């Protein structure tokens, strides 16, 4: 029924805005990936042929330069954490199940799969069926997602039976190393009614790594089920990282996605919530603090399709040096989605006069009895607060770190796993050379 709702609301490209030069580069890239990754599925070929290879005149890619993608794809890289010299669990002290993917390969020796009644968890490569792909999924709307569909043969496969509450989080660790790698990962999660699961997705890369990561995560959250995803991107080296999350929510469910970009040369996150059942809640928060030369893009879509649902979104960015950020937050409220309560906040601080931020809230509301609010700001550090702190003998850098911590604190507090939050704070402090900040004055 909702698909017949007028006007047509999804922002998927209606007409193809192909650019010959881009198409050519995309095809060359596709051939190179195929040469390295080998036999691919052909059921996404139609989508790939129909979709434009992103360029600046494709609205959703207006501020997102893709030129860096058209470099050599030349190797598959090593396949184990031991060979790559990476720690299987990047979060000290976290008690979690673990799936480690090195350069797109599943590393069984470094992994620790859950053995739990009602939970099926294994690498996608060992499964014969994946969830069917519907026409609204990113594979049919975005060229990079179609690439993922074509080449993605590995990832997390997770099924959680009715009423099952998994006792520990599942850590999905992506690691990239080597030169010219193209990692494609495809995670497939389906949760039955009243189940609960928390997933931590952590992406790392070696300092000399060079290549790309294309990750797509599909989650079907059943009735009254609760899903949480802590997504941390902390990649050294020169990694281009494109990530899609497609989250479908049934009645009464709750889904939380917290995205923290600690480090990343080029990051594009494309997060979509499709709220299909009444009484569901979607929570999406994110923060990014790019330094000189880094690029971070967050595109989010919250699609309210039915009545009586809520969503809350809070993204915060601080941009240093010559860094660039993009935020595009789309909220759809379809004609049937009465009594929707949707909130969106995006606040950004430009910490340098050479940084740039492209922020665009997009609310499309077709129902008349809803509460939707949004706010979007781009500013600078609060000079008054800085002077106040300095007048108390706090140094300029420490005062700024304090304001940063306060600014992004609410997003970090939202992370589902406390050990992840602590590790993220630690790594941010390391990256930005802040004095570590202890919240407990008695310590």
């Amino acid at each position, binding site marked *: 029924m909702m698909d017949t709702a007028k006007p047509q609301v999804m922002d998927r490209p209606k007409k193809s805005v192909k650019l010959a030069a881009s198409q050519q580069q995309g095809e060359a890239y596709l051939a190179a990936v195929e040469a390295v990754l080998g036999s691919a599925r052909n059921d996404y070929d139609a989508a790939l042929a129909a979709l434009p290879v992103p360029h600046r005149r494709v609205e959703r890619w207006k501020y997102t330069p893709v030129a860096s993608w058209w470099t050599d794809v030349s190797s598959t890289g090593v396949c184990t954490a031991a060979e790559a010299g990476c720690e299987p669990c990047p979060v000290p002290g976290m008690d979690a199940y673990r799936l480690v993917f090195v350069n797109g390969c599943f590393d069984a020796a470094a992994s620790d799969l859950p053995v739990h009644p009602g939970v099926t968890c294994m690498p996608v490569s060992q499964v014969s069926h994946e969830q069917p792909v519907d026409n609204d999924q990113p594979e049919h709307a975005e060229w990079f997602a179609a690439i993922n569909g074509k080449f993605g043969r590995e990832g997390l496969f997770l099924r959680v039976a009715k009423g099952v509450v998994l006792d520990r989080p599942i850590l999905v660790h992506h690691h990239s190393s080597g030169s010219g790698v193209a990692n494609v990962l495809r995670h497939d999660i389906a949760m039955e009614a009243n189940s609960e699961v928390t997933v931590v997705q952590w992406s790392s890369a070696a300092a000399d790594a060079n290549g790309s990561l294309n990750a797509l995560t599909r989650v079907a959250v059943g009735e009254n089920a609760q899903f949480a995803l802590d997504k941390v991107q902390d990649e050294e080296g020169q990694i281009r990282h494109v990530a899609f999350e497609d989250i479908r929510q049934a009645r009464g469910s709750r889904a939380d996605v917290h995205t923290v970009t600690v480090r990343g040369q080029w990051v594009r996150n494309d997060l979509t919530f499709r709220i299909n059942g009444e009484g569901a809640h979607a929570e999406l928060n994110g923060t990014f603090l790019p330094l000189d030369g880094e690029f971070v893009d967050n595109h989010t879509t919250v699609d309210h399709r039915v009545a009586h649902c809520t969503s809350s979104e809070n993204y915060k960015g601080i941009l240093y040096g010559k860094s660039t950020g993009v935020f595009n937050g789309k909220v759809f409220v379809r004609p049937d989605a009465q009594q929707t309560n949707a909130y969106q906040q995006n606040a950004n601080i430009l910490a340098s006069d050479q940084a740039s931020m492209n922020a665009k809230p997009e609310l499309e509301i077709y129902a008349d009895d809803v509460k939707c609010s949004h706010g979007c700001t781009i500013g600078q550090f609060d000079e008054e607060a800085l002077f*106040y*702190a300095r007048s108390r*003998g706090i140094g300029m850098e420490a005062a700024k770190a*304090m304001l940063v911590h306060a600014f992004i604190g609410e997003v970090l507090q939202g992370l589902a796993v406390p050990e992840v939050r602590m590790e993220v704070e630690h790594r941010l402090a390391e990256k930005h050379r802040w004095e570590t900040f202890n919240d407990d004055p008695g310590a």
Partner: protein
Amino acid sequence: MLKINELKASIDEAQILKGLNLTINPGEVHAIMGPNGSGKSTLASVLAGREDYEVDGGSVDFEGADLLDMDATERARAGLFLAFQYPVEIPGVSNINFMRAAVNGKREHEGKEPIKGKDFLDMVKEKAKLVELDGRLRNRSVNEGFSGGEKKRNEIFQMAMLEPKLAILDETDSGLDIDALRIVSEGVNAMRSPDRSFLVITHYQRLLDYIVPDFVHVLVDGRIVRSGGKELALELEEKGYDWIKEDVTA
């Protein structure tokens, strides 16, 4: 302690201080009074190191060092404290973390180790008593959602924590009811000592009933035009500022 010589300062090309002289010795309490726009708050800001102001001339010696050569952080660490007329709210930074960073900044300057958690909490407890600062205000974000009186008490609490050599109180009495005024003043009086000085900036004589100054100066149009003892404040209260202004221009 502090020696200001022919200080001239401007903001946005408007000259506010036009050659101000003032000497404060250890243990003294000086009050600066004056009509609106005379430069009282500018003086406080310039001394604390607010960068919006341009110093166009003159010198300020603080404990034998050139105050104008230091940045705001260095001035605070050297022992200068400004109680703000409008204390700043910093959402997300707890009062207690803020103070610990401040105390440790000062200790670093003195070549000391960061304060131990327990010692810090004991110190907070002791100093908070001085101004009857509620325990819950210590854990809240700096000044966020504080009433006017709570903000001013928090200023005095911070002053007590940092034990400055010279404290400048910029219109600390503004926005205070009589009870808060008493509490704040008692906090200040408890901190008076032979080696700590105060510069109390106020528009009204009322505060000086509680914090009794050794000297009173009248600031008009960027200069100190009259100095005297505490009785000068009473005379001003009675006659207003016009009398002095006329006297000056005459």
